């Protein structure tokens, strides 16, 4: 298949050029040596520090595909009635089937099928009205039955697409839209958890997670770097959360991402790929992928070759290391799951006349009930409030920020664009600085709205408003109006006082006045500054300027 990263990735251009090219200089010295020596050089150079490249490098392009496991948000597991809860006491959510007691049989959970159908529809997939279950065999302590039930031959959905956005900071925060193809979505079981207790040479097994339903979403290698992958995953997270089919919390293991990474030169065939696992957050996803792309580039640039292997990401060092795979390539001995008949889903045309609604899944009905998806939400915000697309992007991207904005907009007459400025620059800025979520904001939407109303009414200047904002952030409990009164920040309403102060400043700064009359308009700002200082910033700067201009010219 052709890589769809036509042209150079906009976000990557700068990244790609600053790499490690020390080895290239070494390579030129070793021109006459055999390829074996070149490889030694490669190993040698990987421990060297990064240095800036002087001559133009060959352009290597990363090719990234993703395999994403999303835990289905349901009350019970995929094939058994045990509950699904994070951090429950070990082995407290294990049914006889989950423990693989002999004689137990799987019974398909309808909610999981609905979740898969909803997700597939949201990702524009073709739903296979008939899909099949298979067994994938391997021996591991956290897989009690010795096999996982999955959908290898015929998954529930194929051929979809995910459209995501990149905020390109180098291009004045322009929003770039990209698409990644979804190869397929399949239902499968999660495994249990093993904790290795090396001090006692034992492994502890917790089967609470064994059998929980997963949707595996396979994304084609249409992405070219960590940033694109992270953006795609973020968008998928938002979609899953909007649908309610997965809570998408990577830290709690509800969303797990493995990356398939290779590099090649545009126009050349695709390179050998490696699989990168053990990525525990969206932040690490970008770093892991970019590290791997660079590592592969370095190896190839120095004449080496890439092994088709699985590598683990170590977040402490920021590197990927090969996972010790004793058996080499695994043969999973796939076999149809004989205890489950084919999964049939219906639509309005094919649903049987006297079917029990509890026993059938109707795609058309599910489609009608789909909630508002993130990209629709963004367009709606732009249309409804007249804000810019990149602001809408930020609002939807931050958990709870859109709701915050809507609440504020409801309570104030201030223009949405002004609200956006305060929310994105001031509020979000402070939240990020203190690593807080929107839900943890010390300033409630009501307080924010009150502040904006004061600004609109001309009760405070914009600089005073910033001060009030800082006070509100401290969370002492006072409202905006109370702070304005307490700190005496209200705009001076009395024009005569203003005129008096201006006259005083002018009288004591005759040299500056002469400069202004001489044509140096910039000096006026100094006088405005002095007036403001006298009035402790409570004057309307526009008024001050007007009065000073009148008096000096």
């Amino acid at each position, binding site marked *: 298949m052709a890589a769809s990263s036509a042209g150079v990735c906009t976000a990557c251009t700068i990244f790609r050029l600053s790499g490690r090219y020390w080895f290239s200089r070494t390579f030129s010295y070793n021109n006459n040596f055999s390829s074996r020596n070149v490889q030694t050089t490669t190993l040698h150079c990987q421990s060297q520090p990064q240095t800036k490249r002087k001559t133009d490098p060959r352009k290597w392009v990363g090719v990234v595909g993703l395999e994403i496991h999303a835990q289905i948000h349901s009350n019970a597991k995929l094939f058994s009635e045990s509950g699904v809860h994070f951090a429950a006491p070990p082995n407290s959510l294990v049914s006889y089937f989950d423990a693989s*007691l002999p*004689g137990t049989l*799987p019974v398909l959970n309808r909610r999981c099928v609905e979740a898969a159908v909803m997700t597939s529809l949201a990702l524009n997939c073709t739903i296979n009205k008939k899909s099949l279950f298979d067994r994938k*065999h391997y021996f591991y302590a956290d897989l*009690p*039955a*010795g096999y996982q039930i999955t959908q290898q031959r015929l998954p529930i959905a194929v051929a979809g697409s995910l459209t995501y956005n990149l905020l390109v900071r180098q291009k004045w925060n322009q929003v770039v839209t990209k698409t990644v193809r979804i190869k397929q979505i399949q239902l499968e079981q999660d495994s249990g958890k093993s904790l290795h207790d090396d001090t006692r040479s034992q492994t502890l097994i917790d089967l609470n997670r064994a059998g929980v339903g997963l949707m595996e979403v396979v994304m084609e290698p249409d992405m070219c770097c960590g940033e694109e992958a992270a953006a795609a995953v973020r968008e998928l997270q938002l979609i899953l959360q909007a649908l309610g089919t997965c809570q998408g919390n990577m830290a709690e293991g509800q969303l797990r991402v493995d990356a398939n990474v290779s590099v090649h030169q545009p126009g050349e065939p695709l390179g050998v790929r490696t699989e990168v696992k053990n990525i525990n957050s969206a932040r690490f996803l970008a770093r892991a992928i970019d590290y791997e792309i660079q590592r592969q580039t370095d190896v190839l640039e120095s004449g080496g070759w890439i092994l088709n292997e699985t590598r683990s990401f170590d977040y402490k060092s920021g590197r990927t290391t090969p996972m010790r795979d004793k058996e080499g390539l695994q043969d999973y001995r796939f076999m149809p799951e*004989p205890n*489950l008949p084919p999964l049939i889903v219906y639509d309005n045309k094919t649903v049987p006349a006297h079917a029990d609604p509890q026993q059938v899944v109707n795609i058309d009905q599910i489609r009608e009930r789909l909630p508002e998806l993130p990209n629709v939400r963004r367009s709606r915000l732009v249309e409804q409030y007249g804000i810019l697309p990149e602001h809408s992007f930020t609002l939807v991207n931050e958990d709870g920020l859109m709701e915050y904005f809507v609440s504020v907009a409801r309570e104030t007459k201030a223009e949405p664009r002004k609200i956006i400025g305060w929310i994105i620059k001031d509020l979000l800025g402070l939240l990020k600085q203190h690593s807080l979520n929107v839900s943890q904001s010390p300033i409630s939407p009501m307080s924010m709205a009150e502040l904006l109303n004061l600004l609109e009414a001309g009760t405070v200047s914009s600089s005073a408003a910033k001060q009030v904002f800082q006070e509100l952030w401290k969370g002492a409990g006072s409202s905006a109006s109370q702070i304005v009164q307490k700190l005496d920040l209200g705009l001076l309403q009395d024009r005569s006082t203003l005129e008096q102060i201006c006259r005083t400043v002018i009288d004591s700064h005759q040299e500056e006045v002469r400069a202004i009359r001489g044509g140096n308009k910039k000096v006026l700002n100094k006088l405005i500054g002095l007036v403001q200082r006298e009035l402790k910033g409570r004057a309307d700067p526009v008024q001050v300027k007007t009065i000073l201009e009148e008096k000096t010219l």
Partner: protein
Amino acid sequence: MLGLTLREVSLALREGKVSPTELCQRCLHFIRKTKFLNAYVTVTEEIALKQAEQAEKRFLKGETLGPLDGIPIAVKDNFSTASIQTTCASQMLKGYIPPFNATVVQKLLDQGAVLMGKTNLDEFAMGSGSTDTIFGPVRNPWGYSRQYQERCAQNPEDTKDSSDWLITGGSSGGSAASVASLTCFASLGSDTGGSTRNPAAYCGVVGLKPTYGLLSRHGLIPLVNSMDVPGILTRSVHDAATVLGVLGGHDPKDSTTVPEPFKPFSLPDEIDVRNVCVGIPREYHAPGLSKEILAHWTKAAELFEKAGARVVEVSLPHTQHSIVCYHVLCTAEVASNMARFDGLEYGHRSTIDSSTEVMYASTRHEGFNDVVRGRILSGNYFLLKQ
């Protein structure tokens, strides 16, 4: 009394000619007397007596549960029985006590049947002789019949200890022997490739293999999930129909049971075969078929013809491939189903545990016999992609 059919003894119970506890006691006594047959792995004496007591109370009140109330039955030891050891005649599950009842077992108990015990079988139902079991082979009760002994001209006193005994066939040999030796009136077996019908034929009892999907497999420790069914062994065809009527029907816990509601039926007293067409497969007349079997087969066909049925020759053209296909499918599924036996959650766990892999390997080596291990290896071979 013990020689009656299920239907007859059920009537006797209702008429008060015998009480459930008396019946139970007699069966238990007979089990002890026929211990040399080795048909039972576990005899559930206390449980049986308690169940019989409860049945008796119901009979006295006139509130019987149905045709199986108070009737002694036996269950093959690959059906899960709550709080009662279920071994599959293997080291791997020796001492394994399931926490739940198989659906078909539960249905029998709900009808008031009295559980005499769990019967012997080929290990994990792999075999057709009931000889590959850790508890020793099951002996055919007919090997101790007067007719057989006269034929062998043996001293009756020696027979019980002599090594000249007959096999029961398998793998549900224990179930067949328990019914044939009059220690119970019906027993559950399992049938994948003939494991109920084979021992039924060897032991001279009725063995019914219900159609796949009619009876629930929940709780039946599987051999081949796509072919296993619970089997019914009784001393008459009517009895088999009675038990089938109790056990049939959709089970939500088994997704391979047919969802349509099951309507129990009863066989008419006068069997009329005039509208029945019987097919005799030509390929089954295979080279090596014994003369005696051929004679009986022909006799059966003649009986049907005389009774007015239409008897025709049919062809099952793939017969020659059937055993090979069966082996491939069976071993593949066996390899898969046996993967869960690793000693971690239940069953035998080896003391050699220097690493997880070593523990798995030694547990499975110690737990399984040659037949099981052989099938697992073949099955994995067939499942490999390369």
